[in-house]
């Protein structure tokens, strides 16, 4: 079974973001970038499926500028067999990415596509669902458990207040939630080996896909800063403040 896993290059989750002074966007210059955490979980799940003998080949894919190849190398170090870089410098959001990924799906014909449920930059939570729609595949979003049996994938989904299990006909799209697994760290020898694994480049033109224009970004602002409050000297004072000042007890 072939598994396609999509990854995204985003600002490292530990970096405090800065909004540009002209409010046009978030400032990405000289900022540490990393693989989106939910994509790490998606890659890990693909690797585990291969370790179980369910998946035979893992293809990692990303859409983005040249630098996004770093995240493909990370995916290769974690266990993907080969990688496809859809290179573009355009501002693409979920619909545009989903259309480009559909182009890759058409070429690669995977049995399962795994994506992170959302990227921690735009927080859209759309791409997996959109890819499923465009390819006519069923979708198992926010997955906390995935198992493949008899041409179907059973996906346990994290829904508000509990869990829901659905069975989907393959090929299918799955998006990862936090509890799906705990991703491993790439080991140095694997990072070295990953440099030799195949990485092909595509462009929107070679895929025959025109990039869908995202919504117009008019302004980006920093939310109202939260002001720090007071230090209290004792538990008694804390309980008193919570009861009589904040009135939350």
């Amino acid at each position, binding site marked *: 079974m072939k598994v396609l896993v999509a990854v995204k290059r985003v600002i490292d989750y530990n970096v405090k973001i800065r909004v540009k002074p002209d409010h046009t966007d978030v400032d990405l210059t000289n900022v540490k970038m990393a693989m989106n955490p939910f994509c790490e979980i998606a890659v890990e799940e693909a690797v585990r499926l291969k370790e179980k003998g369910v998946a035979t080949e893992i293809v990692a894919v990303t859409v983005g500028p040249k630098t996004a190849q770093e995240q493909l190398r990370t995916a290769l170090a974690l266990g993907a067999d080969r990688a496809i870089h859809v290179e573009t410098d355009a501002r693409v959001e979920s619909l545009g990415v989903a259309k480009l990924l559909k182009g890759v799906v058409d070429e690669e014909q995977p049995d399962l596509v795994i994506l992170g449920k959302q990227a921690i930059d*735009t927080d859209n939570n759309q791409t997996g669902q959109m890819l499923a*729609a465009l390819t006519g595949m069923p979708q198992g979003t926010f997955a906390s458990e995935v198992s493949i049996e008899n041409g179907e994938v059973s996906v346990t989904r994290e829904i*508000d207040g509990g869990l829901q299990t659905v069975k989907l006909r393959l090929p299918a799209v799955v998006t990862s939630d936090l509890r799906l697994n705990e991703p491993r760290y790439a080991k140095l020898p694997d990072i070295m080996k990953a440099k030799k694994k195949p990485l092909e480049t595509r462009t929107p033109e070679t895929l025959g896909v025109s990039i869908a224009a995202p919504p117009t970004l008019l302004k980006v602002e920093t939310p109202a800063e*939260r002001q720090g409050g007071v230090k209290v000297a004792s538990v008694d004072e804390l309980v008193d403040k919570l009861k009589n000042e904040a009135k939350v007890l």
Partner: protein
Amino acid sequence: MSILVLAEYHEGQLAAGTAHVVAAAQAIGGDIDILVAGDNVAGVAEAAARLDGVSRVRVADNAVYAHQLAEPTADLLVALADDYTHLLAAATTTGKNVLPRVAALKDVNQISEILAVDSPDTFKRPIYAGNAIATVRSEDSLKVITVRTTAFDAVGESGAAAIEAVDVVVDNALSTFVDETLAQNERPELGGARVVISGGRGMGNGENFKLLEGIADKLGAAIGASRAAVDAGFVPNDMQVGQTGKIVAPELYIAVGISGAIQHLAGMKDSRVIVAINKDDEAPIFQVADYGLVGDLFELLPELEQKL
């Protein structure tokens, strides 16, 4: 303008979030319809018809729509979409599952999790886990939008909208519902709790999280954790509050032994009142806490439990 709101329900009850989505629809302006799609959902439709500001409740009552599965629900919305300028749903796991599928099938973008309506095509939404607010304008003829329900006050329930059946029936050969388990925890769910108490690396180990339980019991609180505590193996990942975990905004958030890494603050900084308990008086968590208590949590927690 004409707006269709996808109703959400659980176990035959209209979800509270739908009244907030209708409020967002009112902010956009225009005729507001509600779609109730499911199996045996007459009761849900009646509840939806009582929401203020709704012109009409459209009910697609068929077994294929049971459990609000994404594939048939999206196909139904696509079949109805031509009557509308806006499709709205709550930014819940149901809305987030269904609406992007509809948007892609209609070849339009989706605007996720709006916080405010600037005009019928311009909206404010959080990016980077709420560390920045983007103002975006949809250029699409059909606007597909999910709504952060806490950002809009619910409409009242004194309406009497007409209820009409929708006879569109779609096929679903793609997905099958197997089962659903809703948490029967005595503690509230993290996302919806009025009070949340979270532990960080300072808790030392998973066993020590028991110190939070007594306090949580007294306050009816959910228990959370920082990513550091999860990464250290103290507690499972589903307790994680932060950019890569759950985003919470309770009335009271108590951070214990949490230094206040950016990624944690991103998940809780919209809480109404924040309390921090930490032995390091320089910890960044104190910069966002309304009330800070510096000291040894192993002494302070038992005392707090006793005095609540």
